[in-house]
């Protein structure tokens, strides 16, 4: 099977990838700027004999995902910020019950109803929990239409491998922009779920039940420790990031998703002006590339985090470098985009004041 090249919106690429990744069921509810995912799948999934359903709410969608995943099927939902907030209870249950599934958040700016324009204000919610209790999602942050597709395949595989929900945290710009996307042949690793999926109990095995309830504190703590051990394994094995021109960098940009795209241009402009700057783009937000950032803290003079929020990932960057180098923040909110030039100007001020001091 050869590669297929298409021109698509980020949201459509994600939907098409879901079909190619063998997603058995998609449940969603309309919300801007991601309704194309539901529309695309409502049109295409039945052609493949898959289940697609417009639910009555995001609360229902995520619980349908729970049911489908609990029966051993590849299941997915997508939404945007307010809808993802509604799903948090269900996501916590899914994490507690250790069900593999894929949740895509095409982030818009908030809080509240906010605006339909892109934002990255859901970093904390995605990476630090969002729902109740101690749990982690594997969080992937695509910065291109290509990655919107790639992360669907990767996301399903990681979800199955660790029996853990995976979130794709993109934003309204990456969801809506049109770019070239290449679909490579994909083989579903077909992880065996017959040891736990609820498909009807034959005589010769114990019953299966999906639950996040462990009423005895001893059992609950045991389950908590098991989850934490799993998150450690994930942190050990699944860190993903991209480095651009970091080899001799003295100022390091740290940015993900759309803001990384803008920073990439800023890096080029600053290099043309003779400044040694580079970019580290976390691709996985959990697990976070903290080890690599700690290494780079021994090389660069300072770091500058650029986000479409009031400064969220910057806290994790500061934790990673642990005071070794100054970490500054530059961001816009409310759906406003920083221009590469504004980032350049901000970086040049920092270079002048910090490098010389």
């Amino acid at each position, binding site marked *: 099977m050869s590669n297929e090249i298409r021109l698509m919106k980020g949201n459509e690429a994600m939907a098409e990838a879901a079909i190619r990744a063998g997603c058995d069921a998609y449940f969603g509810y309309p919300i801007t700027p991601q309704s194309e995912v539901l529309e695309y799948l409502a049109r295409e999934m039945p052609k493949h004999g898959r289940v697609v359903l417009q*639910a009555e709410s995001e609360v229902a969608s995520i619980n349908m995902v729970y049911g489908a995943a609990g029966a051993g099927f590849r299941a997915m939902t997508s939404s945007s910020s307010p809808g993802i907030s509604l799903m948090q209870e269900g996501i916590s249950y899914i994490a507690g019950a250790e069900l593999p599934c894929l949740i895509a958040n095409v982030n818009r700016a908030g809080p509240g109803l906010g605006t339909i324009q892109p934002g990255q204000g859901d970093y904390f919610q995605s990476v630090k929990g969002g729902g109740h209790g101690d749990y982690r999602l594997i969080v992937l942050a695509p910065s291109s239409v290509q990655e919107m597709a790639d992360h669907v395949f990767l996301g399903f595989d990681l979800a199955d491998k660790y029996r853990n929900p995976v979130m794709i945290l993109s934003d309204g710009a990456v969801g809506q922009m049109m770019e070239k996307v290449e679909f490579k042949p994909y083989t579903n690793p077909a992880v065996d779920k017959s040891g736990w999926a609820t498909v009807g*109990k034959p005589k010769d095995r114990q019953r299966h*039940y*999906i639950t996040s309830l462990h009423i005895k504190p001893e059992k609950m703590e045991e389950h908590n420790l098991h989850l934490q051990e799993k998150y450690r394994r994930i942190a050990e094995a699944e860190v993903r990031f991209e480095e651009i021109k970091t080899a001799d960098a003295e100022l390091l940009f740290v940015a993900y998703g759309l803001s990384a795209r803008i920073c990439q241009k800023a890096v080029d402009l600053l290099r043309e002006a003779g400044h040694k700057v580079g970019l580290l783009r976390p691709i996985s937000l959990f697990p976070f590339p903290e080890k690599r950032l700690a290494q780079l803290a021994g090389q660069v003079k300072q770091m500058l985090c650029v986000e479409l929020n009031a400064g969220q990932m910057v806290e994790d960057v500061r934790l990673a470098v642990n005071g070794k180098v100054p970490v500054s923040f530059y961001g816009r909110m409310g759906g406003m985009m920083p221009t590469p030039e504004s980032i350049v100007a901000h970086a040049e001020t920092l270079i002048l004041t910090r490098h010389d001091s």
Partner: protein
Amino acid sequence: MILEETYNTKTTDSAEEVYDTVYEPPCTLLDTPMHYCPGCYHSLVHKLMMEVVDEMQIQEQVVGVAPVGCAVFAYEYMDIDMQEAAHGRACAVATAVKRLMPEKYVFTYQGDGDLAAIGIAETIHAINRGENFLIVFVNNAVYGMTSGQMAPTTLPGMLSTTTPTGRDTSFYGQPIKVAELMAQLPGAYYVTRQAVNSANAVRKTKKALLKAFQYQQENKGTCLVEIVSNCPSNWKMTPVECISFINEQMLPVFPVGDIKVPKL
């Protein structure tokens, strides 16, 4: 100690010698102590459902969905594959399970807080879509697990921990009649309300459950069996007093009988 052992051995021996087995609990009901309060009807309803599963020989084809509420541990007692749903979301969970495995028998088991308060949206939409599963709705007019707060089905004037002077209908409205409400939806195929506070009522409930399971084979829509139940602990009544309370107070508001039956 010695005396007790002798006594036990004696009765076991004599029981085997003297009696034939005339009744056994269903094979799919696990032989484990239940957490339900003495006199509570949940265990009885569990048993009836598992009797139906046994009689239809469908253990391998059944997937159940447990609620949040007193029946949250239903999967500890039923020897079938089950999922424990978030509070009120059983119908959403069951929708996915049934859509992905249309050949299976799927049911939800829900109480009045779960189904009629927090989960009424999921319930209405599932029935409106005509999802081809069975909803077993156990209505005891009170939040049992959280110990006695007002439910959407609490009777007018009925005491609860959150209506200490009785449910004031001018303040909280009338109890929701779930079966009548849901029967209006075109997706509902079979809707009935039954009770389990007499031997006769138990037999009728069993029949209703059997029919409701069987109707899934026809793929014609949602079946809802509402069962008027009790709560000795939170009603602060003995199980015997509960029987009269159901007859005198509950059944006038929640009358038993078929509300919607398949057209032949």
